[in-house]
């Protein structure tokens, strides 16, 4: 065999391997796309029975009765939204404080250990938050916080109804606190990263004009990083909306709409987690998957919007949060 033939043969084999490798990377990438499509199609398909049976009433009715086979998701949607929004009210200020501390305040030797410690909070499995919430936080709230709320805040005009009722320990307030603890690391990580993208020159100009550290943060850093802060906050909201195990332990699992934050309730994900393996009738099962479709739509919208906002910023800065 001449050397030209050998070379041609080697080139041929190289080309073949190139085609195979390139093809498999493309196939894998397209698989990611198909995965999202597959999730959508399979869930809508499985939930169709419930949607076709109840139509719009599936979303607007507050009823959940496996005995009479009547299902409406309103209570679960209400519980999901209330716990998540309340969790955001707790988590956003704390996350902002942590991000400020880590970027502007902490000495260098403290930054890394504290940063890692906060990130570790995100690594703890959600079921651990669940048992901790049930066995530690809930009794604490039941004995010390909720009776005080009922006694002191329950009689206030307008907002009083939020704090009335028997102190069960488990309920929307407890779920929201646990959720807040879980999403603080996510929100603070994104906020820290966007704060770090603020050019030093901008901050130095602020200090040069005689501004205090806080004034530089509030009037230079925050306006500059607004889009990233909102994106990070919505990412946290997406997490809170879909969180399952931690909430399942402490929400109380009652398909009920109560104005009181102390009352047991349920969320979409908690209802699915609790009832799915017990759902015997096809309509019951389909209704639970229908709940999953609603959750998917809500979180997809929130996460999608958050990702679009973050996409406009430097993508690399956010790691794999």
């Amino acid at each position: 065999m001449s050397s030209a033939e050998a070379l041609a043969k080697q080139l041929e084999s190289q080309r073949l391997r190139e085609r195979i490798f390139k093809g498999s990377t493309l196939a894998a990438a397209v698989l990611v796309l198909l995965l999202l499509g597959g999730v959508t199609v399979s869930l809508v398909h499985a939930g169709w029975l419930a949607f076709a049976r109840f139509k719009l009433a599936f979303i607007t009715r507050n009823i959940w009765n496996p005995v009479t086979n009547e299902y409406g998701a309103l209570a679960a949607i209400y519980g999901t939204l209330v716990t998540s929004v309340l969790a955001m009210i707790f988590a956003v200020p704390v996350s902002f404080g942590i991000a400020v501390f880590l970027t502007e305040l902490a000495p260098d030797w403290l930054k890394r250990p504290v940063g890692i410690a906060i990130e570790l909070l995100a690594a703890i499995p959600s079921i651990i938050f669940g048992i901790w919430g049930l066995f530690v936080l809930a009794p604490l709230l039941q004995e010390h916080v909720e009776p005080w709320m009922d006694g002191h805040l329950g009689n206030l005009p307008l907002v009083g109804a939020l704090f009335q009722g028997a102190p069960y320990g488990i309920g929307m307030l407890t779920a929201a606190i646990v959720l807040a603890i879980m999403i603080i690391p996510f929100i603070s990580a994104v906020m820290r990263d966007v704060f770090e993208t603020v050019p030093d020159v901008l901050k130095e100009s602020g200090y040069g004009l005689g501004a205090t550290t806080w004034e530089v943060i509030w009037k230079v850093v925050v306006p500059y990083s607004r889009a990233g802060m909102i994106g990070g906050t919505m990412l946290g909201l997406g997490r809170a909306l879909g969180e399952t195990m931690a909430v399942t332990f402490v929400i109380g699992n009652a398909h009920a709409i109560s104005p009181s934050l102390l009352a047991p309730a349920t969320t979409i994900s908690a209802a699915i987690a609790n009832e799915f393996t017990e759902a015997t009738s096809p309509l019951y099962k389909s209704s639970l998957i229908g709940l999953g479709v609603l959750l998917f739509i809500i979180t997809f919208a929130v996460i999608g919007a958050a990702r679009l906002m973050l996409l406009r910023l430097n993508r690399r800065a956010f790691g794999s949060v």
Partner: protein
Amino acid sequence: MSRRAYRRIVNLLALGLSALATVIGLVFLGAILWTLVKEGVAGLSWAVFTQVTPPPGSANGGLLNAIYGSAILTVLGILFGAPIGVLAGTYLAEYGRGSALSSVIRFVNDVLLSAPSIIVGLFVYELVVVPMGQFSAISGAIALAVIAMPVIVRTTEDMLNLVPRGMKDASTAMGAYPWRTITSIAYPAARSGMVTGLLLAVARISGETAPLLFTALNNSFWSTDLKAPIANLPMVIFQFALSPYDNWQRLAWAGALLITFAILILSIFARTVVAKLGAGAGSR
């Protein structure tokens, strides 16, 4: 009060509150770890590692089958998820760089990265469990793979993008096809970062419970059959913690301690040791 004094007080107050916020975050971490150690150590014994889960009320028993099941599910999940994740990440960083398809896939991957894991559980239930007619270890592993994949896609792409363009160009200039450049130049240069991503994916999926609820389910007995339900730590913790039996609750805490510290140690290892090893090789 002078304007200057007012501004100073506001400054101190705001910075004080931000330090307080950090303390709050750390206190919660400490409180959770403290509870785990306090409750978990009491339940730890050799039996935990040598005996299978007991019936309610009996004196002994352990978590052997759950530990084994969790290990199997995690390993299979990574084995399924990692190759696809690495290949897809490679496409995004190399072949598809800048294309419209890549932007769409990247966005979809980012959404999947944050999608609720219970949705993944329902999806795999419909995709695998319903056709198979029963809950199975293999469906649990697939669910975990779906959760691990986006993490690996993301870290692979990010790490490949950090490899200097010049290195890849040098390889191309010597006549190497892209596949050769990627496998022989880019992968080795990005290796430590990719390993970190893989370890973080392991940490992420090994504690996942929600996607296993309707896939792997649980099993009170020793089972290695991939087509049958398999015991796993998160589901055992879920079941045992909510039970009224003392011995089950003790085991739940022991399991919680084991899984949390395994994950924390893995996370710290990935972030410090592996990342540091890579700092030397990755920063030419």
